[in-house]
């Protein structure tokens, strides 16, 4: 790992000599070899001559504003990953930096592991981006945010909505199929909000044990002592992410509603306490259905369903699949110690015609299985074990010109049509007009059909 790190440049911009010395020491011990600048002017010079892919930048410098410097660097070299450093209490500025394109922000005092982890992530992402061809290929977001690699129009719209709702403190309700990236979406909203420096606490309200759920969520009930602070307490100042709130038992729905109505939580030991949390909820389907089914209290629905956000399923954005699949392959290959470098066009074509009922989870599982069971550097069709109807490939399969009759066996006319259209869109790099030309139909026909698929899958 060390040689790879050493080959990639890293610039540290910190004006306090002892802190520069300390961070440099930590980074060197982890195998990095940073070049250092103490002023904005020095950083500008070094950046121009060395073009380091990753920059660790203190936001407060003696001769210039760190945010301005960062913007200049990103304008000159957008693929640069800038990690900003700020003092505790200046998190608002760090969040501002994130909105302007910073990869990550670190708050002083910096923990060794956090520092090294952030730099390593930045380098991994830089490599992923540049290996895909550099500028303009896609915007890859950090950690779990890989669901949002967005070349498709639908995901670009989602990203715009995320930026908008992050600026508000009103509750958000995310609707999306299993594996479509709801948790990543909640994380992105939180990280882009003014609450980014505070906790993001996740609770699955579908937990069957009502007493345990009550203790987890509200910190009361018979199990509260063993479970410690409630999720509402732990999310103080931050965000509470509720999965499947429609599954809460009626009495817990009433308690949650009371807290949201009064802004106060009646804790067992401490009496009424003000609640400062933002709520993001998520479910697979529109919660209106749960109201109709008598499962969700209508008043709670109106409290939670203020800013709705719908995530498209993977099959509705085939143009994103190649980039996501390549990123997953790079990550999984690294995790498993394998040398996979690319997905062959044949394998990619096969991946693009799958229905991906399990969305990103399913795609990740298919790729992991291939990586674990085979050696790279190419991922070929024969390595893919797909659950597609009529097309189960094994390593023994020839790398593969599928028998069309076999592949289509058991499918309805509508399924065949859907697959043909999706494959054409994928072959044409996501362009619906070009796909329509290839299929000799009007683009409006594809747009209409795509709307129908999305309605069906929602």
């Amino acid at each position: 790992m060390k040689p790879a790190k050493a080959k990639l440049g890293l610039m540290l911009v910190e004006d306090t000599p002892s802190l520069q010395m300390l961070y440099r020491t930590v980074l060197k011990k982890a195998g990095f070899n940073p070049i250092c600048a103490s002023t904005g002017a020095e950083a500008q010079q070094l950046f121009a001559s060395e073009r380091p892919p990753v920059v660790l930048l203190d936001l407060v410098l003696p001769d210039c504003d760190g945010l301005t410097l960062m913007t200049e660097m990103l304008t000159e070299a957008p693929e640069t990953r800038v990690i900003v450093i700020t003092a505790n209490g200046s998190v608002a500025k760090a969040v501002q930096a994130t909105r302007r394109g910073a990869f990550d922000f670190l708050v002083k005092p910096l923990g060794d592991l956090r520092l090294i982890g952030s730099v390593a992530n930045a380098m991994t992402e830089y490599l992923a981006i540049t290996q895909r061809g550099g500028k303009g290929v896609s915007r890859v977001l950090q950690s779990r945010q890989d669901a949002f690699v967005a070349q498709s129009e639908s995901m670009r719209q989602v990203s715009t909505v995320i930026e908008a709702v992050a600026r508000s403190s009103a509750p958000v309700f995310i609707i999306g199929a299993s594996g479509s990236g709801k948790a990543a979406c909640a994380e992105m909203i939180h990280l882009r909000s003014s609450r980014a420096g505070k906790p993001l606490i996740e609770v699955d309200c579908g937990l069957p044990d009502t007493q345990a759920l009550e203790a987890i969520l509200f910190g009361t009930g018979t199990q509260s002592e063993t479970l410690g602070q409630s999720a509402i307490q732990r999310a103080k100042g931050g965000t509470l992410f509720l999965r499947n709130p429609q599954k809460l038992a009626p009495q817990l729905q009433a308690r949650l509603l009371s807290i949201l109505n009064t802004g106060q939580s009646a804790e067992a030991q401490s009496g009424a306490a003000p609640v400062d949390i933002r709520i993001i909820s998520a479910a697979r389907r529109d919660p209106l259905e749960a109201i109709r089914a008598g499962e969700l209290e209508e008043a709670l629905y109106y409290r939670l369903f203020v800013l709705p956000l719908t995530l498209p399923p993977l099959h509705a954005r085939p143009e994103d699949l190649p980039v996501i699949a390549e990123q997953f392959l790079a990550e999984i290959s690294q995790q498993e110690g394998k040398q996979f470098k690319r997905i062959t066009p044949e394998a990619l074509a096969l991946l693009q015609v799958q229905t991906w009922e399990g969305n990103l989870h399913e795609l990740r599982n298919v790729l992991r299985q291939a990586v674990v069971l085979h050696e790279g550097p190419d991922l070929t069709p024969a390595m893919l074990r797909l659950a597609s109807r009529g097309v189960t490939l094994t390593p023994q399969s020839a790398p593969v010109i599928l028998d069309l009759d076999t592949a289509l066996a058991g499918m309805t006319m509508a399924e065949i049509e859907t697959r043909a259209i999706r494959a054409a869109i994928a072959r044409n790099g996501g362009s619906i007009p070009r796909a329509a030309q290839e299929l000799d139909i009007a683009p409006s026909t594809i747009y209409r059909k795509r709307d129908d698929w999305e309605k069906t899958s929602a």
Partner: protein
Amino acid sequence: MFPTRLDTTILDSLVEMGGEELRFQLLADLQDCEAGLKALCLSEPGNVTGTAQEVAHVLHTLRGLAMTIGAATLARACMQAEELGGAAGREMLVQNLLNVVQESVQVRAQIEQCPDRDR
């Protein structure tokens, strides 16, 4: 004894990482900040001669240092002075800055008393 001024376990781990060279640099940086603040507020008694930006920069640097070495009281004092900033009357600002300097001197004294690892 210095009960809450400096968390010496944090300082120890830093010195273990960066050696005595780091300790000397920390002391030098603290001293520079103190000198900077004194220069900004003591050249004219009862007045602050530096711009708000200059004062804020030194306080910010000192706060970053204080948090890194586990000097919580000093970090808090810097933050309070930063928050007061231009809103405070000159006299109050000078008093705040002098308090910060005094606290920094005490922290430095405690760092100097910590055993030298290289000996």
